């Protein structure tokens, strides 16, 4: 078997322009917008085998495959999606989409506002998880997908899967909600605000309109990413990988990079600040903070989930403290109380929140087992 046997191979992104105005939760209306997306596998004649992959904070539409033969990095969930992989493109038509407000090609703060000919910048409206789901539903219409066989996401992506099941009960057969939560805790919002403050107080941020100034709030983005990264790893995982290892083997008694963990975080921060848009980071963290599907139901999550008809799979990871198993259990408890079909697994992992992107064996087995079941439903 060649090493490419389970890759979707060379892929390319597509664009869809929507000129029907999109009313947003925040009260404004986006007159028109573009979504960039990718698809893998074939949509069947009934249009019943489509799976939507919802991305998390820094994710995007490039979920699997490579853009060219010598492309070094594959899509961000390439380990999960492809022929013979748990989300098997031999059976499913898989769609990855960059959400509104993103910085990978869909309309967002760094896009040109057609009304002014300038980047949106600070004038780009805050969008929410329900707004994303509405935009994704329009893309589904465009693609001929009346009902998703499954909507799948980790973290902020899991929130979209949950919202889909609530907002479009007839259009989701299965919702897979991984390493997620029914709403953020105060601690989680606090982390997000520190990240936002790092960006907003960077003098190069220029109130969000840094594009015209030819600057990038690199320092802020870098700090935001470093902080975020700490919370995505577990103490044990970080200890295992870096411990107290020193780059040079001995203390220098100064403030330059000495410990390997410092070097790693700075590298991650630098890399991130090279490609990620500061306004998108702010927007994504706000979408996280605002997510609370129970809010429209007097805080009653059970009532919110009552309309869902999907079957659910909820998964969490033991060492994830940013979206801890207890938070997933809240979702599970509400789903059971609402009488919904749900399975829940708490996967043993040292990978912290990032575990949803990793390949811990029970996790891969769980995804495979669930999606084989979905494939049978679709074929039946």
């Amino acid at each position, binding site marked *: 078997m060649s090493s490419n046997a389970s890759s979707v191979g060379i892929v390319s992104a597509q664009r869809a322009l929507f000129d029907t105005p999109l009313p947003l939760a925040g009260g404004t209306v986006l007159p028109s917008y573009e979504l960039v997306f990718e698809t893998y596998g074939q949509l069947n004649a009934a249009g019943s085998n489509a799976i939507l992959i919802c991305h998390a904070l820094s994710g995007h539409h490039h979920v699997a495959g490579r853009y060219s033969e010598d492309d070094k990095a594959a899509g961000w969930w390439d380990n999960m999606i492809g022929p013979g992989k748990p989300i098997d493109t031999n059976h499913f038509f898989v769609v990855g989409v960059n959400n509104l407000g993103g910085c990978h090609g869909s309309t967002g703060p760094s896009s040109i506002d057609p009304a002014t000919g300038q980047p949106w910048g600070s004038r780009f409206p805050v969008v929410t998880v329900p707004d994303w789901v509405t935009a994704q539903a329009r893309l589904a219409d465009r693609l001929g997908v009346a009902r998703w066989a499954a909507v799948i996401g980790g973290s902020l992506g899991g929130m979209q899967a949950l919202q889909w099941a609530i907002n479009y009960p007839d259009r989701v057969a299965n919702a897979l909600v991984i390493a997620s939560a029914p709403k953020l805790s105060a601690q989680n919002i606090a982390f997000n605000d520190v990240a936002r403050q790092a960006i907003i107080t960077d003098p190069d941020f220029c109130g969000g309109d840094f594009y015209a100034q030819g600057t990038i709030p690199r320092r802020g983005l870098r700090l935001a990413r470093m902080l975020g990264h700490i919370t995505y790893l577990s103490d044990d995982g970080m200890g295992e990988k870096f411990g107290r290892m020193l780059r040079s083997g001995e203390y220098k008694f100064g403030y330059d990079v000495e410990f390997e963990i410092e070097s790693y975080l700075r590298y991650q921060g630098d890399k991130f600040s090279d490609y990620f848009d500061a306004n998108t980071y702010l927007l994504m963290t706000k979408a996280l903070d605002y997510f609370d599907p129970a809010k429209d139901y007097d805080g009653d999550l059970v009532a919110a989930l009552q309309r869902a008809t999907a079957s659910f*799979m909820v998964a969490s990871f033991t060492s994830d403290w940013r979206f801890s198993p207890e938070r997933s*259990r809240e979702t*599970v*408890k509400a789903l*059971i*109380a609402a*009488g919904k*079909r*749900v*399975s*829940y*697994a*708490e*996967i*043993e992992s040292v990978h912290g929140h990032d575990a949803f992107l990793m390949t811990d064996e*029970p996790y891969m*087995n*769980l995804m495979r*087992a*669930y999606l*084989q*079941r979905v494939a*049978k439903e679709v074929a039946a």
Partner: protein
Amino acid sequence: MSAPASLRPDLQMIADWVTPRSRVLDLGCGEGDLLAWLQAHKQVSAYGVDFDVNNVVRCVAANVNAIQGDLEAGLAEFEDQRFDHVVLSQTIQAMHNTEQILLEMLRVGREAIVTFPNFGYWENRWQILKGRMPVSDDMPYQWYNTPNIHWCMLGDFDALCAKNGLRVVERVVMTGGRRVHFLPNLRGSLAFYRVTRG
């Protein structure tokens, strides 16, 4: 979805007690055999609970809802009186919080179905008389590696129910897949109880 055509005799005994189209919770559901059968043959709506992630995966494959969880911690995921039947099959003798789980079962459900190996079975008594802890098909462990820490006989379980004001609706005792009517505490190796509140 394919369900097993036949069940292990002890699981069949439990299945016979389950009302069609009822709501069932199976604690320590293993690979989901009982629930898959009940879904296929009695159209129940059901959840299983199991500690082992590999069992959750097998349940998912068998189209059985499974919640990974530790029964020792109680049944916090489940609301009061959510179920018609709550099953605990050959697990109670391995639990630390024996009394608590029994009460939890009757908090979340109308009826508890509890099965356990009867320590009073004559073969067990005989092995004890010979000077050794019992080892049998229903209790296949040595004293030093057994997960079974709370052994009881029929009378002990009756007493636990009485202490908590619980009502034993029905009791069946079996040996080798056959029902035992005469001298059950001596001749029965597996006990089956249906218990409700008062």
